[in-house]
């Protein structure tokens, strides 16, 4: 791979677009003290893989794939550390309390999932379309749908109040 002395603008645009997504993904797969390392690793892997990007897929779809692979492999290196979710921010504006609670619930739930199921659910939370999920994960649409339904059912069972 040729040494990249510069970064082209397309890559920079992608990196900007993925920045927040990398961080959210890193929180799910790394302990709080390792989050920054994982985000840096994702950026590095994105940069290393950039010359191989053919442009057939959407850049963000391709970016997600690199990030998820990095996260899945990253956990393997730090297996001795429990994958506790990083601490969440304090509630901010009106409605923030609800969001903070929901984030805490999501963090707890995601930590209980297997790594692959975690990736599926994170992509769902990121509002990624089913077609993009197929592209990112290399699974069939029905396999993804099946997993997602199972994960949602598990979430519902654990966290939703039952009204009489």
């Amino acid at each position, binding site marked *: 791979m040729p040494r990249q002395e510069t970064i082209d603008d397309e890559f*920079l645009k992608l990196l900007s677009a993925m920045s927040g997504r990398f961080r959210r993904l890193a929180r799910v797969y790394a302990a709080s003290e390792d989050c920054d390392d994982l985000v840096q690793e994702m950026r590095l892997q994105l940069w290393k893989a950039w010359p191989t990007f053919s442009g057939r897929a959407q850049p963000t779809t391709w970016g997600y794939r690199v990030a998820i692979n990095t996260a899945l492999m990253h956990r393997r290196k730090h297996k001795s550390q429990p994958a506790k979710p990083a601490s969440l*921010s304090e509630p901010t504006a009106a409605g923030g309390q609800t969001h903070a609670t929901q984030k805490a*619930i999501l963090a707890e739930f995601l930590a209980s999932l297997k790594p692959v*199921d975690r990736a599926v659910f994170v992509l*769902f939370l990121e509002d990624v379309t089913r077609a993009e999920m197929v592209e990112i994960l290399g699974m069939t649409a029905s396999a993804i749908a099946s997993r997602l339904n199972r994960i949602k059912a598990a979430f519902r069972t654990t966290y939703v109040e039952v009204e009489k």
Partner: protein
Amino acid sequence: MSENRPPGGKTPENAVQNNAIHDEDFRDLQAAWQEPEAPESPTTENDVISAKDKNMLVHELHLMKSKQSSMIRRRDLVENLAAVFVIIFFGRWAISVPDRAQQVGATVVVLGAVVVIAVMWFGRRLFKEADMAATPREACALQLQAVERQQRMLRWVPVWYIGPVGVGVVCIAFATMEGMGLVCYLIFCAILFIGIAYMNARAATKTLQPEIEKLSEMLRDLGQPNADETEE
């Protein structure tokens, strides 16, 4: 929020309002998930990236990449230097001594060091860094192969690392020593070689085996490339 609690007694603060998942939409949860926790910096989608920030980013990425590769280079350099030292030292010994047994022993040590260099060189050539742009299944399979290969190399250390060098060293010992000196030296060599073999075998089991199991489990979880699961 409803006062009623499901079996299991979830408290309100641990539960999600039912309307958050009404029609299985999860919209509220998605919004909560995507809410940024802090202003993004220094690059955001609408920010103009200055040339200075761009250069800093290039520098940072190069630094990360070189930090990773310099660790590997350093380790390889140490091992190669040690092998070269052994080749030079025992090579000169093989050439200069008249005793046939010592010549044979020294030559075997030299060949052993060459085998070590060759095995490690081929190992590096075969190692293919997992392609992070591949599907998770392909990346995971490649990573699993690499770790399994590494485990095999560690388990076979007695054969390709210790064996040839050890045989040569023992030959030289028999040619140059006798009596208690020889016995003590052989015991020392045996302890050293067994220790090296044990540590490598232990690393293969303690460090790499759990990683292999987890990668294998992940690979099973990722399923076959075109497998469909039953939609519930």
